[in-house]
């Protein structure tokens, strides 16, 4: 079987170096397979997160040849194997060990978003009448597997470290799902501006570019939210109108 060289970042707390390993490459293999093969044979203590191996859980985020990717969805046949393949942890988050980073910020940021708050049920059996077209957009945002790759590439977090001021693209589309939820009655405009820091986003769309679920984070989520914030703050009439007719987009 052909082999390839993988340079895997090894170390703890940000101190470390690349370590070279050979892996056998079989048909259809993904980068995560190579990493697990190396782990099972010569580096039992190589730290890496994974669960589903099918792009569904968002555990295996890393940077492969410098590109933020899900390792389980990165086919070896799609990368140049004549050169060593580098595999590094996501860089925006503190490193724990090897490929594993401390992603707790993302969980904490979500707590800054007020929970879902539905209007009273429409029907006697406690259900609501909601049509598919009212939730198509929301369902797009709900495809998010919380891989945090978008958070990892957003320059506001990665370069400028605005972790206290800004919740990042992943959590903004969580906010967008709630704001566009046909049943939600919470007024979220003030929070978006003040607690969630939507103003820090300058629409570079780097987040959208890396999303493995192809969610149009910026165009469908952040930009409409920004418009709402602008309307809500500078156009009290529009805000009042929206309150009166409900919030169906």
């Amino acid at each position: 079987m052909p082999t390839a060289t993988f340079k895997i970042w090894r170390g703890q707390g940000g101190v470390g170096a690349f370590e070279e390993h050979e892996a056998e490459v079989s048909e259809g293999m993904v980068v995560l397979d190579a990493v697990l093969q190396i782990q099972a044979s010569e580096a039992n203590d190589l730290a890496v997160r994974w669960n589903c191996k099918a792009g569904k859980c968002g555990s295996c985020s890393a940077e492969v040849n410098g590109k933020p990717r899900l390792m389980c969805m990165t086919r070896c046949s799609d990368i140049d194997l004549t050169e060593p393949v580098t595999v590094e942890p996501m860089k925006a988050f503190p490193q724990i060990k090897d490929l594993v980073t401390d992603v707790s910020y993302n969980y904490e940021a979500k707590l800054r978003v007020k929970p879902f708050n539905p209007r009273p049920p429409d029907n006697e059996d406690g259900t609501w009448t909601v049509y598919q077209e009212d939730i198509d957009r929301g369902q797009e945002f709900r495809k998010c597997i919380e891989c945090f790759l978008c958070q990892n590439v957003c320059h506001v977090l990665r370069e400028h470290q605005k972790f206290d001021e800004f919740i990042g693209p992943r959590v903004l589309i969580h906010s967008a799902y709630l704001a566009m939820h046909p049943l939600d009655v919470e007024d979220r405009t003030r929070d978006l501006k003040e607690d969630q820091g939507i103003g820090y986003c300058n629409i570079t769309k780097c987040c959208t570019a890396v999303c493995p679920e192809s969610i149009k984070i910026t165009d469908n989520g952040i930009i409409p939210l920004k418009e709402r914030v602008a309307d809500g703050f500078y156009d009290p009439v529009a805000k009042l109108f929206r309150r009166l007719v409900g919030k169906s987009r």
Partner: protein
Amino acid sequence: MAEVRTLDYDVLIIGAGGAGLRAAIEASSAGVRVGVVCKSLLGKAHTVMAEGGMAAAIGNVDDRDNWRVHFADTMRGGQYLNNPRMAELHAKEAPEVVKQLEAWGALFDRTKDGKILQRNFGGHKYPRLAHVGDRTGLEMIRTLQDHGIHQGIDFHMECTVTKLLKSAGSISGAFGYFRERGQFVLFRSKAVVLATGGVGKAYAITSNSWEYTGDGHALAYHAGADLIDMEFIQFHPTGMVWPPSVRGILVTEGVRGEGGVLTNSEGRRFMFDDIPELYRNQTATDPEEGWRYVTGDKNANRPPELLTRDHVARCIVREVKEGRGSPHGGVFLDISWIKSKLPNAEDHIKKKLPSMYHQFKELADVDITKEAMEVGPTCHYIMGGIRVNAETQMSTVPGLFAAGECAAGLHGANRLGGNSLSDLLVFGRRAGHAAAEYAGSHSPGAIDQAEVDAEAAKALKPFDGGDENPFQVQKSLQSMMQSLVGIVRTESEMQEAVVGLGELWQRYAKVGADGNREFNPGWHTALDLANQLTCSEAIARSALVRKESRGGHFRIDFEGKDPEQAKVNTVIRQAADGSMTVSQEPLVPMTDEQRQIIDEMK
């Protein structure tokens, strides 16, 4: 003495999949202190991978559906080994708990008149599965997670429990370690709910992740609880078979629910050739009727592709064995053929099965809107597990509860697709409620410090320089279980497996971990291995005593069903000397009303 951090709870929940989260929400709503631990990050448990949907007789698509039909379907699917009270509670309560998810923000696919849409699935008489495309589990876990984080519950992510602690016969806590730094932790808790999922990582070809090492089963067993029905493993008929690196990854039954057909190398829809007696009245007689069924004709019967999973899996094995398989040792599953029936088939497939489309496109270079997939059986689910009381989910150990895949009873000998997600909600809620109540009426039990120290020392043993590689021992176990206690079983092979397990236990005693205690998967795997070996032994020993074929348990040396075996559960229990005992005990009897429903629905 090892350094151990101590945390106090009224209710400790081990597992943050659908069952654990639902239990946590319920327990905390009763006002008690709740802690949740899980091996991975929050939101990554197996539940996130569930695809097809959750079964609940809401009757939105076919108003003939109701709990009685769902109950009868579940019992028939389980070949009547189910705990009938659990099957009844599940069928009655599933609609309510599914609708409740909507109140917490879930966005289910809708019917034209604005209700929750339901789809067809194997063994369910009417379209019954509430779903979101083919990513229902993601919607479910995210809804529970996002609701749960605002309920004052403490979450301890990447923390693995290795032992349950008891005092005077009842649960008093649990011991474990944080994966990140390797520190030990002692949870003192009045009640413990196990929601740890399954055991599928004991097999080589599996849809299950590294987490599925049967921890909850083994923890309960060592705490003195009974396990039942451990011989019943579900091999899902459709896993990916090619390329090798994705072998075993699940292809949702939703593909067949949307009209996908199974064919062999001769192009024949072989499922029409073998329709079991129990289902003859409910199965289509020709492809045309099958298509009418999946497109909603209420007078049509379901196509044979939607027979129960155990049966479909065995038919596939037969086709492959008899030389009619696909190039890589599976059969063909084709959804693209619906082009001949639907004008916008391509978009329809992408809308209904987006992640299958994505999965095949990205991982196998197959466009499912244009060509057939290659599929074969993959280890998927364990019906057996911790024996529980139907109302409270309490195990045979006071204060120890279990819910979800690690508990047993609801599914009998075979689980119907979609009945797991609803199981998690119904019995997660019940377990959370009962555990909170139990905690309210009991004071904390004592903790035996010597026991804690002994467990800490045991956990550190792999660092003593053993020379067995834990991953390699695990691999040997997986290939042995796959070939000797797999889909098709026989006495001599299973005896061989029992001997083989003895040898693996010896290798396990010598496993070593390199490096230090910080996020060290080799060490973690070494500790998980003991649970895998315990569960594998329980599976093999149970399978040996059930000398018949039923549901997920198929023996070539005893091909038919034995009416005597229809009356018993297989029970695994630890003897006083630490050895594993296996016995057979009578089933929970059906009430007259339950029996009547089943007769009516024959």
